[in-house]
């Protein structure tokens, strides 16, 4: 048994009220003028001795009445098999369609207890609204019917995972796929600023359009170099921007330290800036850093440019952890190595600032840490039937109904019992009163 309003059960303390009333309210002995008290001996009053016993049925009725009223207020719900079968026989259905779309239940299906259609431009939004609506539905099998042409990317695994397990999922393919599709795929860093790129796919053709975004360019790579190499670095950055690179997320940054070649001997003395730039190098633990380093190492342009540089990094420290080689110079030593840090990827390079390898390295790093759009999601092709079947599932029977959504409980029976007990209590009380008055009249008649 469930109680829809269990806090009302605290009112069960009220059953003490009839008991207290029966104990406290004793029938007062009627005043009776009499010639003399000299022959009367004190006795116990019958009211004190027998009152509770005499009124036990009435007391029981009153206690039952209060208890039934309290139980009715608490909203009892008996979870019988019949009730569960009734719940399982009915269905609450939410239909999710794309804006402008529609879907109708076939005549062969029984009408649901409730049905609501949610049209949304993005099916995932409609599914979320449908879940919220189903949470407010009375106990029944819950089902979401998604009606769409299901272009690829319209529903993902994440959208399906967000649907609670008890809710059934049904996919109805309706309508046709759009002939063209335009999607925003990312931001580009250009010499003119940030531009948003939209790609329109029409059949097998693809067209792109860049739209200027009113936001400053946030160059994601810090370069540590000598003062002499600064103009070369600026030129390299300008060259990279002129080729348009994808913008990185704000928390994804890199630092390139241009290590000057050794002046004499094997032991290399670094400037303070270089030492500071390399100081926080640490093993790579962030996945995005590892992905970026792998992408840089796979860049063929970088490898081609690297072999044209004569000298690689001579310092032995770059040959050991945490440094990982990215490309090798002509002498076989690494031209550039990478490590992790708290602030992003750290890259040490022996390429001079004016060498072509430097802008190639910067472009490779920028592309590696940026979000590269996945155009496959934007393609105008339907989600495979196999995927839809894998996502489909029947609605599960009601196991734990939401108490606040119970549409019909058992309190009506208790209220009926309360009314019956009330009538019974009135009848018993009146019968007692009539009996008492009859006795009184009999005595008065005898006295008269």
């Amino acid at each position, binding site marked *: 048994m469930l109680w829809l309003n269990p806090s009302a059960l605290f009112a069960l303390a009220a059953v003490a009220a009839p008991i207290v009333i029966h104990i406290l309210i004793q029938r007062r002995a009627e*005043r009776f003028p009499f*010639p003399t008290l000299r022959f009367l001996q004190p006795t116990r009053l019958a009211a004190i001795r027998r009152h509770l016993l005499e009124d036990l049925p009435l007391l029981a009725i009153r206690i039952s009445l209060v208890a039934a009223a309290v139980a009715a207020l608490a909203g009892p719900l008996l979870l019988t098999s019949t009730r569960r079968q009734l719940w399982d026989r009915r269905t609450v259905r939410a239909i999710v369609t794309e804006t402008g779309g529609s879907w109708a239940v076939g005549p062969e299906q029984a009408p649901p207890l409730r049905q609501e259609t949610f049209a949304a431009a993005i099916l995932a939004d409609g599914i979320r609204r449908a879940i919220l609506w189903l949470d407010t539905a009375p106990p029944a099998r819950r089902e979401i019917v998604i009606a769409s042409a299901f272009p690829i990317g319209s529903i993902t695994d994440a959208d399906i995972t967000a649907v609670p397990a008890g809710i059934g999922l049904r996919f109805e393919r309706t309508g046709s796929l759009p002939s063209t599709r335009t999607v925003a795929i990312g931001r580009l860093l250009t010499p003119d600023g940030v531009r948003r790129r939209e790609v329109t796919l029409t059949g097998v053709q693809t067209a792109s359009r860049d739209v200027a975004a009113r936001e400053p360019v946030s160059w994601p790579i810090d370069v540590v170099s000598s003062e002499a190499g600064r103009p070369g670095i600026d030129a390299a950055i300008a060259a990279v921007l002129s080729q348009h690179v994808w913008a990185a997320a704000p928390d994804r940054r890199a630092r390139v330290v241009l290590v000057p070649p050794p002046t004499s001997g094997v032991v290399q003395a670094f400037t303070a800036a270089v030492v500071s730039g390399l100081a926080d190098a640490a093993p790579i633990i962030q996945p995005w850093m590892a992905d970026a380093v792998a992408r840089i190492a796979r860049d063929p342009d970088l490898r081609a440019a690297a072999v044209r540089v004569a000298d690689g990094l001579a310092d032995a420290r770059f040959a050991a952890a945490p440094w990982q080689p990215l490309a090798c110079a002509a002498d076989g030593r690494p031209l550039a190595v990478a490590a992790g840090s708290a602030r992003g990827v750290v890259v040490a390079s022996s390429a001079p600032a004016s060498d072509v390898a430097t802008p190639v390295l910067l472009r490779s790093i920028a592309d590696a840490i940026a979000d590269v759009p996945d155009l496959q999601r934007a393609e105008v092709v339907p989600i495979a039937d196999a995927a839809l079947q894998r996502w489909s599932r029947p609605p599960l029977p009601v196991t734990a109904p939401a108490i606040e959504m119970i549409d019909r409980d058992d309190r009506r029976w208790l209220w009926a019992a309360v009314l019956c007990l009330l009538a019974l209590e009135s009848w018993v009380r009146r019968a007692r009163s009539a009996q008492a008055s009859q006795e009184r009249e009999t005595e008065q008649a005898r006295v008269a």
Partner: protein
Amino acid sequence: MSGLHRSPFHGYSAEFSQYRHYRPGDDLKYVDWKLVARTDRVYTKQFRETTNMASAIVLDTSGSMDFPGPPVTKFRYAVIAAAALAHLISGQGDAVGLLAGERVLTPRAGRQHLRALLAGLSSLTAAGGWSAAVNVRRASERLKRRGLLLVLSDFYDDEEQTLVELRRAARMGHEVVLFQILSRDEIELPYRRDLEFADLESGRTLAINAGLARHQYTDAMAAFLERWHSRAGAEGFQYSLIVTDTPPERALRNFLLARRR
């Protein structure tokens, strides 16, 4: 009904009353010589003297007489009985007086006095306390010569004190007649419920279950009535227990018939 009461005076007139042993000093002409011849004992004949008699009605006006409530209380019953007795006595030409609470009427004869007495009776109410002993004493003292003392009461007062005064009145030569007037309910206590009994005179209360107290009460009441009956008989008083559910005329008839015997 005239002539149903006898004079308390035993004189020597025409109507023979009884024999008694001769006492020194008796007039020898009343000695029944024939009886002396038959029995060898000396008896003197006594004769009843028919004279005008003075009577005093003593009526209990205490609160205890105001029971069991309208229409006929003990007090109302006693007033009716007293009026009837006064009417009888006055109708014989005898003097009758009344002592009821504060109302005192000296014994006199005549219809005018009877009307005044009846008017006085009708204006009486039963309330408060009342001492039988005091009123019996006052009544006996108001009778200038030996007379008839009629006391109508429930006799719930101090029994001993009342008896002393009644005995004293008898010694003064008065004939004492007691009417103990009670209701059936106070004899049998026919109640079963819880009742808060309130004393009609003192106002004192006692809450009891009447059904539980009934047995002891009826025993005590029977003992009380038996005590009065036996003491009255022992003292030579004429005693009548009158229950108010008996019609007054029947009660008086029984009394008068008993008195004639």
